């Protein structure tokens, strides 16, 4: 069995409040593993301990108790950090740098130089669709563009693990969709993705496994199917069904003892999908 990409064991993080003896337990005896190659989502409401857990994994904070490892290396170790690409929530980069300068700066910090750095920068700018804005300073970037340059920055040294903290926070649905597509591409390219979010639909679309954290403790963990399927209920979606056929189905269900129809009606799209369809349609019309 391969070494887990992230291994958190009995992690506890306590913060003192000011100079008093009071303290807050942000993370309470938390344990979980992220397997290499999977997309793992840690979900929970604001203040549940998601970001604190991430910071301990990154070595930006020390654990009060327990431990965190990245590919078997102590979190915070310089080699462990070389395996990680991190995108913080609402990333702020040096606004005086352009997109290409930002990627070069982070690339150099990771030891990239010369043509290797140049090629990687071009490749990533293409990947996140920012070639045209590459020479523009970040001060003039939109929120979605900042998030995408942030994502490119996380990948600059080709890390095995990508940690994303609320990757679509504050981004409009179209930008949000682009980021989700990028996460799926990362998964297909063999990256391990560990993301924190409180946007459940987003997590549902991209994650292989999910952990639900609340008040610093892991409440549920498992694959999406395990977590969200209701074992004694089955859904059936029909297209072009005539009233006669629906009648027959009703009769058939009524004849079966202990079976009832709980819900019936037209399938609905989500507001988000509707918005994206309209936006895409408008873009196509404008292009024509």
């Amino acid at each position: 069995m391969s070494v887990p990409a992230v291994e958190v064991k009995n992690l506890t993080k306590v913060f003192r409040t000011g100079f008093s003896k009071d303290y807050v337990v942000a993370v309470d005896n938390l344990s979980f593993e992220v397997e290499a190659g999977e997309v793992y989502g840690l979900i929970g409401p604001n203040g549940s301990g998601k970001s604190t857990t991430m910071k301990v994994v990154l070595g930006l904070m020390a654990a009060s108790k327990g431990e965190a490892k990245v590919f078997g290396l102590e979190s915070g170790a310089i080699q462990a950090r070389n395996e990680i690409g991190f995108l913080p929530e609402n990333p702020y980069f040096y606004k005086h740098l352009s997109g290409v300068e930002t990627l070069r700066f982070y690339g150099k910090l990771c030891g990239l130089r010369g043509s290797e750095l140049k090629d990687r920068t071009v490749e990533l700018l293409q990947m996140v669709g920012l070639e045209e804005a590459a020479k523009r300073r970040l001060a003039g970037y939109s929120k979605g563009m900042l998030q995408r340059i942030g994502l490119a920055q996380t990948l600059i040294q080709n890390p095995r693990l990508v940690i994303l903290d609320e990757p679509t926070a504050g981004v409009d649905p179209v930008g949000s969709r682009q980021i989700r597509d990028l996460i799926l591409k990362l998964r297909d390219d063999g990256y391990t993705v560990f993301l924190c979010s409180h946007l459940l639909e987003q997590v549902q679309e991209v994650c292989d496994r999910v952990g639900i954290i609340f008040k610093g403790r892991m409440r549920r963990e498992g694959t999406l199917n395990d977590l969200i399927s209701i074992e004694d209920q089955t859904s059936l979606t029909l297209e072009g069904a005539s009233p006669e056929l629906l009648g027959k189905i009703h009769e058939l269900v009524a004849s079966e003892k202990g079976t009832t129809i709980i819900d019936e009606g037209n399938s609905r799209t989500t507001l988000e999908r509707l918005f994206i369809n309209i936006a895409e349609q408008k873009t196509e019309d404008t292009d024509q």
Partner: protein
Amino acid sequence: MSEEIAERKLRAPAKAVKSFSLLRVWTIATSTVTQLVRMKTFYFLLAFAVVVIAAGNFNIPSTPAKELSMIKKVSFGSMDLFAWLFAIVSTALLIPRDLEDRTLYTILSKPVRRIEYLLGKLCGVLVVVGVSLLAMWAICSLVIFSRESLYVADEMALIQEDGRYGAEEVEAQIALIREQGLRPELGFAVLASFFKAAVIASVTIFISTFASSSLFTIITSVLVFLIGHAHSMAANFWLQETENNLFVQLLLKLFKILIPNFQIFSFSEGIVQGEAVVAALVGQMGALTVGYIVVFLFLSLLTFVDKEF
């Protein structure tokens, strides 16, 4: 692990990185230089140029030599002031801003040691201070040289005009002017200002590792700088007070150790006034500057290494 995940092609481990890298320090230093340059900090050079040009054109009823001496004092005094003030303000803006903007998260989550970050920031500030001092020196030299040439030409004209002054008298006057004019030794005065700015920049880095804002860092650093100028006087006075209790005595001794003695870096005044330069003293000051920087970087690291973000 599900079959689907097990079938995914995984990425290869990253290449090993050096435990400490001067290239990473240099990357942060160059980025700091770019940051300070793009913050338009060099605009203060314009203010300096105005001060120096004004001093150069301020006619006081005195001899040319005294006038040149006054221009030098004003120019090098302003240069010193601009250098340490710039070192404090620019350093104080860097770390707290990186923290507020969370830029620090993305930098420290890369394979960068905290000492590399601190060292890079300090080097960046020192490069900018060094370049600024060179630019200010160039402006000063231009003004002093033009005034010196003007005064020498005036003296030469006196001989040709009416022969009131003998050639020897004029030669003596010219020698006096040259003595107060542009001399290579003035470079050491610039170096002294750089040493002072480097020490206060390292003190500011230390303060900014635990300060909560840039304003607090600037005020505290300026206070340290001012106290550092009264170092010997204050230490002699307070430490010889026998009425102080042990706690006060220890506190004073701690202050004496922690606050650099900036008085000893003020050897540039003598050079500006035309005193001879003692090479050993300059070397000693250089070594002391490096010593202070090492101590304050070490203290910065002690507070910064376990800092949680």
